[in-house]
């Protein structure tokens, strides 16, 4: 758990980057710091492991004031992932991943076991990649290594500064999914900086939307889309907010509220889609296929019904727009 208690950062010359921020990241949650550039999100993140000093207020990590801890020990207890992966080019993959356990004085055997387990988590062979150097890996692989390096000593808290920002969209999506999978297993308390609204909606349990160093809204992604507290929040998520919010709902949700359509066996070559897919992807599939319907299957592969563009639209209307309490433009 991380608690920000009136946390403030002022630079010389009276530039205030973070203004009295109060919020709590619950244990095991991913909280995404989102906002336009210069909103103070990275500064706020870096104050947690004291790469930036705290001018005023406190940051409390698992009940302990971060200023009471030795700076070096504090950092070793917090996993840190940055955009440019930050791997050390002069060290092998194994040395890179095991850097914190190494500094903490773990035994050789213990380190080896941990390394292999971490590599398994991201689907890479420890034996094959351990002795290689970072530049011999692809961008996506390097970023995965960056993530497991942060997990190496099993820290309770992780800080991620636009960790997937430098990757191409396809790889990014894949690593996001992979990371969410890992997070379900390890349940870290994570503070995650992003400037990508879609990424924030996808990754976050809660989003902190910042502007000019102040919190505009702290809420779950769906609340923020459906009930923006101010015009800024409304504008920030943009006109396609309804479509964005679709990614928070699955076909199963739709089925439970309005039900699926009967599928028409007479149409040849109909595609199928798993019921756990989110509606945003489903919609783009429907549009790309130029198909009237896509057959929905459950995990066992049984046909549950069919989904159509009309159904998505209907669901959007009832479930999302119906709840929206939009701040009217003045």
């Amino acid at each position, binding site marked *: 758990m991380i608690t920000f208690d009136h946390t403030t950062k002022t630079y010389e010359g009276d530039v205030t980057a973070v203004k009295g921020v109060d919020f709590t990241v619950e244990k095991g949650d991913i909280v995404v710091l989102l906002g336009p550039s210069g909103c103070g999100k990275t500064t706020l993140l870096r104050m947690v492991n004291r790469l930036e000093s705290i001018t005023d207020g406190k940051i409390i990590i698992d009940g302990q004031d971060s200023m009471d801890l030795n700076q070096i020990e504090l950092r070793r207890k917090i996993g840190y992932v*940055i955009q440019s992966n*930050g791997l*050390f080019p002069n060290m092998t993959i194994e040395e890179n991943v095991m850097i914190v356990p190494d*500094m903490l004085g773990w035994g050789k055997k213990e380190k080896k076991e941990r390394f292999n387990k971490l590599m398994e988590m991201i689907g890479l062979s420890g034996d094959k990649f351990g002795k290689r150097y*970072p530049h011999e890996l692809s961008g996506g692989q390097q970023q995965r290594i960056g993530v497991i390096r942060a997990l190496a000593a099993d820290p309770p808290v992780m800080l991620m500064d636009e960790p997937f920002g430098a990757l191409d969209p396809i790889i990014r999506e894949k690593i996001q999914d992979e990371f969410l999978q890992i997070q379900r297993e390890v349940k870290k308390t994570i503070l995650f900086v992003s400037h990508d609204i879609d990424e924030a909606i996808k990754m976050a349990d809660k989003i902190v939307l910042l502007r000019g160093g102040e919190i505009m809204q702290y809420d779950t992604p769906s609340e923020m889309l459906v009930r923006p507290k101010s015009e800024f929040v409304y504008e920030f998520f943009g006109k396609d907010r309804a479509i964005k919010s679709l990614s928070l709902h699955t076909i199963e949700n739709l089925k439970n509220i309005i039900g699926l359509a009967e599928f028409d066996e007479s149409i040849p070559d109909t595609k199928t889609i798993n019921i756990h897919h989110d509606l945003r992807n489903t919609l783009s599939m429907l549009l790309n296929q130029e198909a009237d319907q896509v057959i929905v299957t459950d995990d066992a592969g049984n046909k549950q019904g069919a989904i159509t563009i009309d159904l998505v639209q209907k669901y959007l209307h009832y479930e999302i727009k119906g709840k929206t309490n939009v701040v009217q433009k003045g």
Partner: protein
Amino acid sequence: MEKWMKFLEVNAPRILDLTIEHAVLVGLAILVALLIGIPLGIYLTTNDYLAETVLQIASVMLTIPSIALFGVMIPIFSIINQGIGFVPAFVALVLYSQLPIIRNTYTAIRNVSPEMRDAAKGVGMKTHQRLLRVEIPNAFPVIMAGIRTAVVLNIGIGVIAAYIGAGGLGVLITQGISRGDNYLIISGSVAVAILAMIADAILLWIQKRYTPKSIA
């Protein structure tokens, strides 16, 4: 050609002795210069204001003609009865090698990418761990390039040291000039050139051997 053979037959042992003397003078001077220059270069990366000043002083040092600097050393070291010979030559060579060593160390460490430095801090490295494990290994090729420049520079300047009685290959050249003996001048010059090339080749080998493969 026959004259050359005869000359070398008579003078080879002496040329070899002087070469060794030259190498020892330059080698010791470089060693001390490294002990001063590298820590200083690293320290300067943490103090921009001082860095400017020190690098300027080192630059000025390099513009002083070597013969003048050796001359200046004589009265200074006369105070401790070491006016001529090894000591003033040694000190002058240490001063001359400072600029390439300090500047390259400073630049190399400064140029370690901020992300990498950030990552090193972020994983909880102490300052010395960051230097030894990350910054110096990644700065190594540029630091070595500075050392190689300093060594070759010093082997050349070391010739002048003969004028203040420090010995070395300069002895052959100065004698050759005063006696009008071309054999002495040429053999001294060629020996200096060969010494410089060998030293540089060895250092290049070390540089390649110990540069992390991934940043070469």
